[in-house]
């Protein structure tokens, strides 16, 4: 995986993804479409695009890929910094777009089969007894999903922080992430999930279909298997899309289960526009930031203001552990920003 394709080639890989993300962007190699700018402004602009898009989709409870947002933001800022010719669109399609289409399909088929078999095998068992059994199993399967998530997405966070440290001259270009970076990345993901994950949990747990413990166990086991195997074999699949596809598969695997395909449509739209939208924001941020110090300050202030605004909007209808299982069924409108 450690070749000249940089981020694209390595972005989803488990072993060493952290340093590869950093090298892909900053080193001699070019990434999925990102030229070797080696500039902190370029990285910051790309990150701003990713963060704002992720916050916006989070506000609407839509699980969108943070990896795609990150890549989109970097592509946008790179486009502004080094023009479109520097972007490898063919790599972008083969390493990002096609896996993005395949991810939910693979996970969905696995989860659908697993759910069908689980219900089939336990059809004569007492419902309450089976529910309790699968609930216990979910402790393990959810832990496996967390492990898979860590081996995949946490590496990217470490890569971005390491990249910033390298471009700032604090670390040598061949450095691996320091321990504090690893701990910070893990802590940030855990905190983000604990504090802000409820909107996404509501969407996947209630709005897509009313998930029962059997389905939850099957979806989680399928997601963990697909993510861990794809990470190990080096085929880039998006964690977000794998988990979402598995939930849809688990929903369809139960007889007579009602799956809200309208929600699937909303997710598909969000997934489709994630990269372009993040690229536009990243490009705009780079455009302003490259004008000078005032531009940098303006970008940072604008990003902070927008992020705060999105957070304040989310407080109008807070979702937390107390109400995560309430309401859901009526589908919300597709986000206008999409």
């Amino acid at each position, binding site marked *: 995986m450690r070749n000249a394709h940089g981020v694209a080639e390595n972005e989803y890989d488990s072993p060493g993804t952290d340093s590869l993300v950093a090298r892909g962007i900053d080193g001699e190699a070019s990434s999925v479409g990102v030229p070797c700018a080696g500039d902190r402004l370029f990285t910051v602009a790309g990150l701003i695009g990713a963060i704002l898009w992720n916050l916006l989709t989070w506000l609407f409870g839509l699980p969108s890929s943070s990896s795609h947002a990150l890549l989109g933001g970097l592509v946008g800022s790179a486009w502004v910094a080094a023009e479109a010719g520097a972007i490898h669109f063919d790599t972008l399609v083969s390493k990002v777009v096609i896996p993005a289409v395949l991810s939910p399909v693979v996970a969905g088929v696995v989860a659908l089969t697993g759910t069908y078999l*689980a219900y089939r095998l336990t059809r*004569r068992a*007492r419902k309450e007894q*089976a529910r309790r059994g*699968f609930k216990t*199993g979910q402790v393990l399967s959810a832990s496996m999903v967390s492990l898979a998530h860590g081996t995949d997405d946490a590496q990217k966070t470490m890569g971005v922080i390491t990249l910033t440290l390298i471009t700032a001259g604090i670390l040598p270009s061949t450095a691996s992430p320091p321990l504090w970076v690893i701990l910070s990345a893990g802590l940030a993901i855990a905190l983000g999930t604990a504090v802000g994950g409820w909107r996404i949990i509501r969407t996947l747990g209630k709005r897509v279909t009313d998930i029962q413990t059997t389905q939850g166990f099957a979806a989680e086991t399928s997601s963990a*298997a*697909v993510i861990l195997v794809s990470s190990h074999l080096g085929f880039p699949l998006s964690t977000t899309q794998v988990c979402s596809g598995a939930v849809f598969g688990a929903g369809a695997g139960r007889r007579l289960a009602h799956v809200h395909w309208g929600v699937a449509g909303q997710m598909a739209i969000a997934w489709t526009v994630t990269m372009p939208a993040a690229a536009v924001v990243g490009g705009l941020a780079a455009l302003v930031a490259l004008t000078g110090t005032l531009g940098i300050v303006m970008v940072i202030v604008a990003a902070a203001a927008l992020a705060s605004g999105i957070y304040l909007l989310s407080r109008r209808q807070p979702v937390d552990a107390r109400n995560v299982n309430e309401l859901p069924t009526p589908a919300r409108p597709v986000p206008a920003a999409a």
Partner: protein
Amino acid sequence: MTIDWTAFGQVFVVSFGSAVTVIVLFATGVALVAADTAATAGHGSRLARTGTPTAHQAVRSPAGSSSGCASRDPSRSSRGCC
């Protein structure tokens, strides 16, 4: 543009096999445990119907209760209160 379909096929086959195996094994275990519990519960209810007081009933049924065996004369039947 090159897509590594071999890797994709491997991912699909290996993840499908591993996930489905785990789910089937676990579901079988759950079914067995639940079936065992159901059989025990069924046996208990059969005993209750036929009248032999279970340990549960002997402990829980208050004296004088219209539904418990303790209110009846066990000497009327060798099988208990019925």
